[in-house]
């Protein structure tokens, strides 16, 4: 969190800099199966975040010594494009990217039935093309869709969203300026059916009460995103059946 300056992030009408209410998500657009060669892929636009996720596998573990006898090895790389940020970012992986790769993997791995694929690897690649705060969450949301698109058995889709605190108030889904000038950020990844949080990080300053309020707010937003994820999958995989009249059914039976 940046140091607080004299910037008002919430106006007199209780609206935020981009006109959102305190508990309102930024616009989210999801698309499944956007890459030709990957086994599974997805694209997300979350606010001004633009992120591509691709999944390869299950495929043979390489090098072989990394293989596990009773499950697939899940590998994950979160990476930001050099042009994705205000200042050019070096393409070499930063400490932040290495840490995020780890926590993102740990949030997706509980959803993957990796015990079905011993001695293999499942590789997840997340490329941030444009960053606008909340990239790890948008990355997880898209990567979970890419896993589903690859046909990998999942216990559940993983949805992710952050809540935080700006101008002393708990709000949902911080934008870039809110993240920089705000007081706290709490990204989570959530599986609604199992009521399970697989990623939880926090920085800033919050009281115990604010924290539990932010937690509830982000959990609810994850449910909304989860529904969007299911819709995105349906759009890709829904098969249009030709109108079947009663006579035709009778014909088939005969």
């Amino acid at each position, binding site marked *: *969190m*940046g*140091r607080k300056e004299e910037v008002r992030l919430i106006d007199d009408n209780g609206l935020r800099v981009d006109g959102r209410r305190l508990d309102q998500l930024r616009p989210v657009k999801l698309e499944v199966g956007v890459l030709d060669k990957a086994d599974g892929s997805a694209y997300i636009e979350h606010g001004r975040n633009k992120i591509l996720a691709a999944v390869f596998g299950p495929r043979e573990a390489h090098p072989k010594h*990394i293989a*596990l006898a009773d*499950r*697939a*090895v*899940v*590998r*994950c*790389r979160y990476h930001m494009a050099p042009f994705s940020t205000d200042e050019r970012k070096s393409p070499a992986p930063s*400490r*932040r990217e*290495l*840490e995020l*790769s*780890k*926590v*993102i*993997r*740990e949030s997706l*791995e*509980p959803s993957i039935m*990796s015990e079905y694929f011993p001695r293999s*690897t499942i*590789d997840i690649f997340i490329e941030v093309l444009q960053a606008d705060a909340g990239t790890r969450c948008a990355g997880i949301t898209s990567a979970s869709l890419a896993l589903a698109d690859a046909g990998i058995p999942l216990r559940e889709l993983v949805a992710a969203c952050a809540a935080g605190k700006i101008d002393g108030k708990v709000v949902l889904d911080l934008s870039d300026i809110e993240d920089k000038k705000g007081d*706290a950020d*709490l990204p989570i990844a959530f*599986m609604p059916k*199992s*009521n*399970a*949080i*697989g*990623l*939880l*990080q*926090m*920085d*800033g*300053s*919050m*009281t*115990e009460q604010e*924290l*539990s309020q932010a*937690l*509830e707010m982000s*959990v609810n937003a994850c449910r909304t995103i989860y529904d969007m994820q299911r819709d995105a999958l349906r759009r890709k995989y829904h098969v249009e059946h030709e109108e079947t009249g009663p006579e035709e059914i009778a014909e088939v039976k005969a």
Partner: protein
Amino acid sequence: MSATHQPPPLAKLEQKTVQDIILKGKRIDERGPLDYRPLTIMLGAVEKANGSAEVHLGKTRVLAGVKIQSGTPFEDTPNEGILTVNAEFVPLAYPTFETGPPDEDAIEVACVVDRGIRESKAIDLQKLCIDPGKKVFVVFVDIYVLDHDGNLIDAAGMAALGALVNATMQEFEVKNGEIKYKDSKMALPMKNYPVPITTAKIGNPIVVDPCLEEEQVMSCRLTVTTDKNDNVCAMQKGGLGVFSPEEIKQIVSSSIQKSRDLREKILSKVN
């Protein structure tokens, strides 16, 4: 690329023993579920560092050293000193720690400790400005894991805090952007005292301050760093398991309680 870790070098039978004992509400080292291991902290062990602290948490040993040097400020904070935290899993600490640059686990420890210090605004960085936009003091916190018996994040966080409160620097005066050192020494300007508390989930029960064997069977852990005003300033979940929102609230609550004693213990060492 971050990959699933190899299974721990703990026999299946041992794993089961650790889990079974916890299900009975006990622990292999005979602690209660919410008991911390004995903590000792020694300040100023390394004289050449500006500040240092060695923490013994059970058999876990972590040494942290603070070095203060001048450097160039970041563009977006021209009036502030700089904090950098680094953690090394030294090969002498554990059979599988390897030489080379820090791996993702070491990076995670450094990041979590860094966030605690940074977000609680523990160091008064504005007092470390020499010439705005040109020259500031850089506070290097280097964490050295010497013996790994579990819960490195907490041990590292407390060692770092100890080293910071122990740190002194040459008193200085700035005139026309020129720095002039005085003969006397001053303490590093501190405003807050963050303490991390890590809780592990093993099966369903939760235990605070997991030892190595417990870490090897845990499904996941949650670190909650709190400041002197009982505000939460950093959190990190780790491991392949999951928490329910209710479990998280419960852990936050107990971590706030627990951190008070430990903070007092560390600060009582400062003269």
